[in-house]
């Protein structure tokens, strides 16, 4: 019998229900796990996402897009297939897609994390037969420090910069990471500013009812904003541009899971790195797989072949599923603005998807 979900040239497809999950080409019916550019692409006729993610998806898909929503845990039947969305903890409105048909249940995680994040609903484990998981950080070297400790470090760094009159600049994804970061900052230290790309999404978050500290737009022609006590949240692509120079003397830090490795920090040439990711680390990945109760696991974007091999050795039926998802862009890939992700080749971790992608692109 054919699988409930399968990879087609348009993306991950449910033939029984005639819909796609995070398709990479325009289709008639797209179920979206979250609004990052490698998962949500414009041009499809209809989108379905979790209700809390509607505003965010709207900013990405444009005002004309038809977006239907489901509450978390609410079920809908699409052509006889049972579909529901469950929190993935990745960013506001991010979902795991549960698809159930003829007694077989699949869960597609999209991107997810198990850590606490006040800007979105926390990951909920959903029992299933087949678990489709990301593996961006699926190596045992990746174990995240406690986010509270990291928040404490970031605030201490900001405070020290503020005291010496240097503007702090945090480089982080405009969608998700930036808002999560803002929620972790201590506004008593100084004013918080957001790059234009960040602000657009801050507004979408606010419109969705997420509480964030005051975040200011960057005033034009400004130097020494906030009297040197300010902190700016900007997308990673802003690094090394003249846009940064306007703040005069700055301290720059990158916020990413990749910052765990010394080699990446050094190569990137960014003086400071904070380890904070919206993806599962290795122990959480193992835990999520275990909690799903699935006997079959399909591993997508990341260290796919390694995680699949490990799970196979641990007695599960595990395979690599070649998708076009990217996960958290490794800063080595140059342009880390996630808006640009769909234009670039996948990260070099996704070894098994590389070939396919390159062939497709040619």
């Amino acid at each position, binding site marked *: 019998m054919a699988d409930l979900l399968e990879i087609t040239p348009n993306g991950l497809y449910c033939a029984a229900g005639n819909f796609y999950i995070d398709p990479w080409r325009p289709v008639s019916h797209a179920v979206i796990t979250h609004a990052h550019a490698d998962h949500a692409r414009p041009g499809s006729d209809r989108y379905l996402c979790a209700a809390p993610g509607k505003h965010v998806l709207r900013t990405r898909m444009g005002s004309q897009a038809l977006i239907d929503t489901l509450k978390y845990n609410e079920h809908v039947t699409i052509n006889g297939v049972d579909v529901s969305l469950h929190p993935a903890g990745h960013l506001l409105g991010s979902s795991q897609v549960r698809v159930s048909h003829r007694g077989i249940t699949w869960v597609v995680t999209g991107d997810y994390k198990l850590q606490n994040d006040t800007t979105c609903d926390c990951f909920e484990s959903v029992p299933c037969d087949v678990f489709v998981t990301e593996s961006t950080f699926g190596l045992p*070297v990746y174990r995240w420090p406690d986010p509270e400790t990291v928040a404490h470090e970031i605030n201490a760094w900001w405070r020290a910069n503020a005291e010496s009159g240097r503007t702090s600049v945090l480089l982080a994804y405009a969608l998700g990471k930036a808002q999560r970061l803002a929620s972790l900052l201590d506004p008593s230290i100084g004013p918080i500013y957001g790059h234009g790309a960040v602000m657009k999404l801050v507004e979408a978050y606010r419109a969705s009812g997420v509480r964030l500290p005051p975040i200011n737009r960057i005033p034009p022609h400004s130097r020494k904003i906030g009297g040197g006590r300010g902190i700016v949240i900007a997308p990673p692509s802003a690094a090394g541009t003249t846009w940064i120079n306007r703040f005069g003397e700055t301290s720059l830090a990158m916020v990413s899971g990749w910052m765990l490795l*010394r080699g990446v920090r050094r190569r990137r040439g960014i003086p400071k790195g904070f380890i904070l990711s919206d993806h599962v680390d290795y122990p959480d990945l193992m835990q999520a797989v275990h909690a799903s109760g699935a006997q079959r696991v399909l591993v997508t974007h990341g260290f796919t072949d390694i995680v699949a091999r490990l799970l196979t050795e641990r007695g599960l039926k595990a395979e690599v599923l070649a998708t076009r998802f990217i996960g958290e862009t490794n800063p*080595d890939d140059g342009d880390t603005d996630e808006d640009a992700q769909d234009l670039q080749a996948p990260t*070099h*971790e996704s070894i098994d998807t590389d070939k396919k992608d390159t062939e497709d692109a040619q």
Partner: protein
Amino acid sequence: MKRFSDLYWKLDSTTSTNQKIEALKEYFVSAPPEDAACGLRVLCGAKQLRAVSTRSLREWAAEFAEIPLWLVEESYAHVGDLAETLALILPDQLTQEPNSTDHSTEPLPLSRCFEATIRGLKGKPDSYKRQVVEETWKRLTPRERIVWHKLLTGGCRVGVSRTLVARALAEMSGLEPAVLAERMMAATIETAEDFQSLISPHPTSADSLRPYPFFLASPISNEPQELGSVMDWQAEWKWDGMRAQVVRRSAGISIWSRGEERMNDAFPEIVEAAEHLPDGTVLDGELLAAHPNNLLPFSMLSRRASRKRAGKKIRTEIPAVFVAYDLLEARGKDIRSEPLSFRRRELLTVVPSAFQRQPALSGGPATLHRNPAASSDIRMFHSPLIDGHSWDDLTLTRQQARRRGVEGLMLKRIASSYAHGRPRGDWWKWKVEPLEIDAVLHYAQAGHGRRAGLHTDYTLGVWDGDQLVTVAKAYSGLSDKELIEIDKIIRSTTIERHGPVRVVRPTLVFQLAFENVSRSTRHKSGIAVRFPRIARWRRDKLPHEAATLSDLKVLLAQATGQQQLSGEQTE
């Protein structure tokens, strides 16, 4: 371990010289002297003991972390640094050390850690080593573990030069950096007392065989004409050997490498030759491998030097000579501040000439002609000067360098004193232009350290018919941006994977630069290139436009033609 590991990470996180000096000073002031001595040894890159093989270490770490060994290997391939990989996969610190507020004491000071967990393992059975390693893992934080792993496997290198360390110690002790640099050359700083006498204001007799800090030349960046009148300069061949100082004092003889290793046992014939030097002599020069009538390629010398103790067989097969080009101490007196012209005159009174005639003037073979007057086993010569009445003369002479088996010319200002470190302006190396061919990327492997996770270690090949034969491994010469771009191409053109090595479809062409070619039995092509590096990425070339093995053979014939003429290639 904490204090030293903090220092390590501070040095790692900054590129500012001042911040590095501050961090070093802070360390040396706060560390107990026995720790400071131990830390200093590591900072100076003293030869380290490999207490535990990296093989065992990964196996033990895999079991300790309860993951399969292959997963450790995959992680290592991604991280690119074994010490870091293992530190990260291990469970968090298990034993919380009592949090001491007094910074002068720490639970596991470097010197004690070193004695107990590194030196103490020597000769012990693996079961004991493993027990010590596991206990230490439990006590260290991941950051400390990284540094400790590097110490344990004998590969702890810190990004500071000796000069910088000497400066920090000088600022701390109030002594001249040069004095410290000299004292540090003594290379035996083992105990607290050693460290204290190193920074002591009083002259010490710590090591009477101490060499002087080496004067290093800079590559010439402009046209030599810009150096002014050729009459102010002395030119010599730039020998392709190993820099060394020969110290002959009443206390004995010592041969020092630039890495301040004592090489007496590796080059016993030079020690013997040095016995004929007058007491109180220090020579600066080059160790070379040479048969009586011709120089041997650097690879032979390298093979020779790799033997800690040179036996009779290798001494006959690869005899060594020492070519002296400077005299630093004469009759027990430090003459480094005298001008080169003076030192050169003195040098000639101490070391004989080995050259029948000056090669620069002869069109003859690039060979060392034994001085017929000298005894047959003479092992020490002075480096001849090259006559050049104009820069044009010297430019012409330089073009013969490769055929003579030397790297080019050295230009030294006649009035210069023997400085220490690499001050620019008085000593220039004027290397011959490199040879170049276009080669095709054949295999690639992930790099290490800063290049971890990117495929940056390339094995390049040339065409032999429709087959690629590998000729060189090259690591350097491309920008970070290019490396990232090439990494992606490598990943998408991989045909096979053998562990960390990827075999790629031939698509990438690089201009490979190298200093010379010689015959080799180790490479499939039968040819080895010296100091290969990538000159640039030839995006404009198709793989089949790259060089062939016969192109390389032509270069080989040109390079060795002279030696073949003299019939002395290999006996």
